[in-house]
């Protein structure tokens, strides 16, 4: 039994284990398989998945469908090629907002191995804007509004304020005035008290309190009885025939004591004078403030009665303000984007705020430097070329060339500003001579974003400048050229727009469809400029003025920080209309203003004049009393000084006489 079972038991012992080599095959083989799978994925599927991902992200960012024809990537060339990009227009899904035939990227391995992205070349070719789509693009539902930063709120508030200012319908208000609306009737309907009225009441109460305080202070001043007492004491002091020097000394001490008392009384008078002077200044300032409040009340009433200011500045602002504000809002949108994605150099405080926590070092040692290893920013688009050819059917298609240089997420590291230049013509839109330059210089603390844009000519058709119930005014047909400059330096914005609108040549037919007005009707096609007003007289004035204008200039600018923008809008259209309105409307406006002034006078001026008179009277009385008291004290002090001098002189003469007598006796004695 034992012999039989022995070989079976010995078998596992004799089974020789396979000798393992130096390479860990059980780890290397799965690793190689994993690498092969990854390679296969990137070779066969990655481009397709990337394309789907880009379409998904693009669609969400755009708010409407984004299609990409194909995407090709190459690991060894570090390149990416995207073809046939179509970005659906959210407002018109049958059109593409932008369509790009080919985009090419080639990155630098040298930078990639340093963990940076540097794009050596990028080409965006055959761009078309507004090209028709084969099928309508899917539009996403709008997103709920996100939270806004404090700076965004300030900026929006500034623009909203400007919007409010420009939305004043000057010509509509003029129409109301011409329509014969009686300001007296409207004024009767205005309820509530005026601000100045409340202020007058407050001032009256305050003045009454001050007057009482003044009287109290005057009563505490030295009276005639006090001066009589001092006079009596002064008379009682011995002024001559001093028996000894000690008597003179006693008299001098008494004079000084009386003088000090008189001096103390003059100080009391002085203090009262100063205190009353301060009160009086406060009251005078309040009266001046009251005048300013009265002026503000008049302005408010004019605004409530819609009495227009028909000067050149106001007319230009009212006519071109909304148009200019649209440009300002567009500039602000792109400037905010530039600051978000290309952050300017951080200040010392900002750097301290966002400093990363440092790990505790074992021992730091010394870092030797042999050059500049980190000269690449994290992202750098070195050069990009853009070109576009005019294609029929696409409204915004044109012959355009442009280039984009040095786009980076970290301009201070790169040390170069981002520049974008483009030139071109859009024949379908009759938009010719477009020449633009964008400079984004975020290298220093004082970041600068600037856009210079020139447009040689473009058609203007049915552009409404004023569109209200009473008046519609705008360009019927015009050819315009424009120069636009927008600059954001630090936190100060400066935007300039210089446009010229000319009457088109007789044979020129703009291809743009006129916009409908708020009432749904286009402007009447009568010529260069046209206007329609409900009031026949206003209609006549406007059309009379507009018929003779050969061209319209617009010079608009805005500058300052976002929370204090100063708008300046000037146009010859404003000048011409102001001239036309001068005779007919100015009289009516003056009449309305006079009525407002009369109302204000009736309710405030009487009280204000009464208060001023009372104040002046009280002040004069107080001044007189103080003057008298001061004169009285001064006179008494003089008396004390004279008496003291007399006493001293009398004693001096007496001593001189005695001395002379002693000298004469000595001479006689020695028979000189």
């Amino acid at each position, binding site marked *: 039994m034992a012999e039989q079972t022995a070989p079976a038991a010995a078998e596992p012992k004799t089974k020789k284990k396979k000798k393992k080599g130096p390479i860990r095959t059980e780890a290397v083989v799965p690793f190689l398989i994993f690498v092969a799978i990854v390679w296969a994925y990137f070779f066969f599927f990655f481009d397709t998945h990337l394309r789907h991902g880009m379409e998904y992200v693009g669609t969400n960012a755009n708010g409407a469908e984004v299609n990409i024809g194909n995407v090709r990537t190459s690991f060894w060339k570090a390149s990416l090629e995207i073809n046939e990009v179509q970005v659906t227009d959210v407002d018109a899904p049958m059109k593409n907002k932008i369509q790009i035939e080919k985009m090419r990227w080639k990155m630098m*391995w040298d930078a990639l191995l340093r963990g940076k992205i540097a794009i050596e070349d990028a080409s965006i070719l055959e761009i078309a804007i507004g090209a028709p789509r084969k099928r309508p693009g899917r539009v996403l539902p709008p997103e709920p509004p996100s939270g806004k930063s404090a700076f965004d709120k300030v900026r929006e508030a500034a623009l909203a304020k400007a919007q409010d200012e420009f939305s004043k319908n000057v010509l509509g208000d003029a129409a109301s005035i011409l329509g014969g609306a009686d300001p007296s009737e409207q004024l009767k309907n205005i309820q509530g008290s005026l601000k100045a009225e409340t202020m007058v009441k407050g001032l009256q109460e305050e003045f009454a309190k001050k007057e009482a305080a003044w009287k109290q202070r005057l009563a505490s001043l030295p009276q005639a009885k006090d001066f009589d007492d001092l006079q009596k004491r002064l008379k009682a002091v011995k002024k001559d025939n001093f028996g000894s020097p000690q008597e003179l000394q006693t008299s001098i001490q008494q004079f000084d004591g009386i003088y000090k008392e008189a001096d103390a009384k003059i100080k009391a008078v002085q203090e009262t004078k100063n205190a009353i002077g301060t009160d009086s200044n406060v009251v005078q300032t309040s009266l001046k403030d009251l005048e300013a409040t009265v002026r503000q009340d008049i302005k408010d009433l004019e605004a409530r009665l819609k009495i227009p200011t028909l000067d050149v500045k106001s007319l230009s602002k009212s006519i071109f303000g909304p148009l200019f504000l649209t440009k300002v809002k567009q500039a602000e949108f792109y400037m905010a984007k530039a600051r978000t994605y290309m952050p300017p150099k951080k200040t010392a405080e900002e750097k301290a705020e966002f400093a990363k926590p440092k790990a505790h070092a074992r*021992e730091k040692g010394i870092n030797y430097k042999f050059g500049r290893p980190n000269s690449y920013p994290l992202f750098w688009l070195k050069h990009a070329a853009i070109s576009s050819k005019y294609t029929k059917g696409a409204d915004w298609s044109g012959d355009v060339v442009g280039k984009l240089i040095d786009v980076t997420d970290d301009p201070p590291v790169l040390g170069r500003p981002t520049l974008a230049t483009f030139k071109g013509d859009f024949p379908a839109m009759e938009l010719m001579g477009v020449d633009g330059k964008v400079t984004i210089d975020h290298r220093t603390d004082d970041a600068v974003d600037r856009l210079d844009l020139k447009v040689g000519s473009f058609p203007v058709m049915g552009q409404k400048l004023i569109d209200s119930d009473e008046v519609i005014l705008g360009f019927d047909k015009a050819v315009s050229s424009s120069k636009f400059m927008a600059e954001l330096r630090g936190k100060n914005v400066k935007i300039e727009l210089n446009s010229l609108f000319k009457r088109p040549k007789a044979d020129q037919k703009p291809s743009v469809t006129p916009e409908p007005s708020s009432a749904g009707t286009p402007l009447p096609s009568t010529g260069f400029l046209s206007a329609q007003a409900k009031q026949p007289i206003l209609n006549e004035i406007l059309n009379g003025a507009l018929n003779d204008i050969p061209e319209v200039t617009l010079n608009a600018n805005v500058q300052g920080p976002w929370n204090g923008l100063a708008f300046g809008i000037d146009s010859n259209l404003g000048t011409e209309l102001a001239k036309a309105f001068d005779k007919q409307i100015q009289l009516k406006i003056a009449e309305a203003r006079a009525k407002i002034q009369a109302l204000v006078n009736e309710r405030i001026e009487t009280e204000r004049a009464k208060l001023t008179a009372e104040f002046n009277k009280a002040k004069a009385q107080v001044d007189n009393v103080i003057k008298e008291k001061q004169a009285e004290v001064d006179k008494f002090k003089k008396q004390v000084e004279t008496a003291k001098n007399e006493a001293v002189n009398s004693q001096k003469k007496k001593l001189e006489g005695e001395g002379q007598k002693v000298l004469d006796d000595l001479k006689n004695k020695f028979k000189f």
Partner: protein
Amino acid sequence: MVFLLKQIFGFVKLLNSETGHIQIAAGIACGLILGFAPVFSLQTLLVIVLLFFFRIQIGAATLAAFFFKFVAYLIDPLAHSVGSAVLELPSLQALFTTMYNMPIVPLTRFYNSITMGSGVISIVLAIPVFFLAKALVVKYRETVYARFKQTKFFKALKATAVYNWYMKYEELYG
């Protein structure tokens, strides 16, 4: 962590077997380099790749790295002096400038005096440590482990069912 514990148990087992003394010695030498190098550096990654691809005892390397990390901390002043001397050698300036401006290479942080000093010391010591470790493992097996095998405790342990089951498991699943 499980992988690391398995490797450390593997090290104990291998140490007490009759083979693998070269793997253990290589692991200790690699652990020396790992311990002296900065944790997040290219050379650390290279050594880990070597450990992964070649049959070097990872448990030995891990334990040695842990031990030599403390040694490296103590010799930082020496490493700083050595590193500074090397980095300031005029004949090597051109080489260092090229390396400094190359991609990837700066990730080794060779330009730091302590990293350079520790690197030089660890490479110089790696070869003697390898041979020393090899000799010590052999010596350990001949003296300590051989004597332990003769103890009653070990014999009693070998006779238990648990030990036999363990040996069977080892034979089947390694």
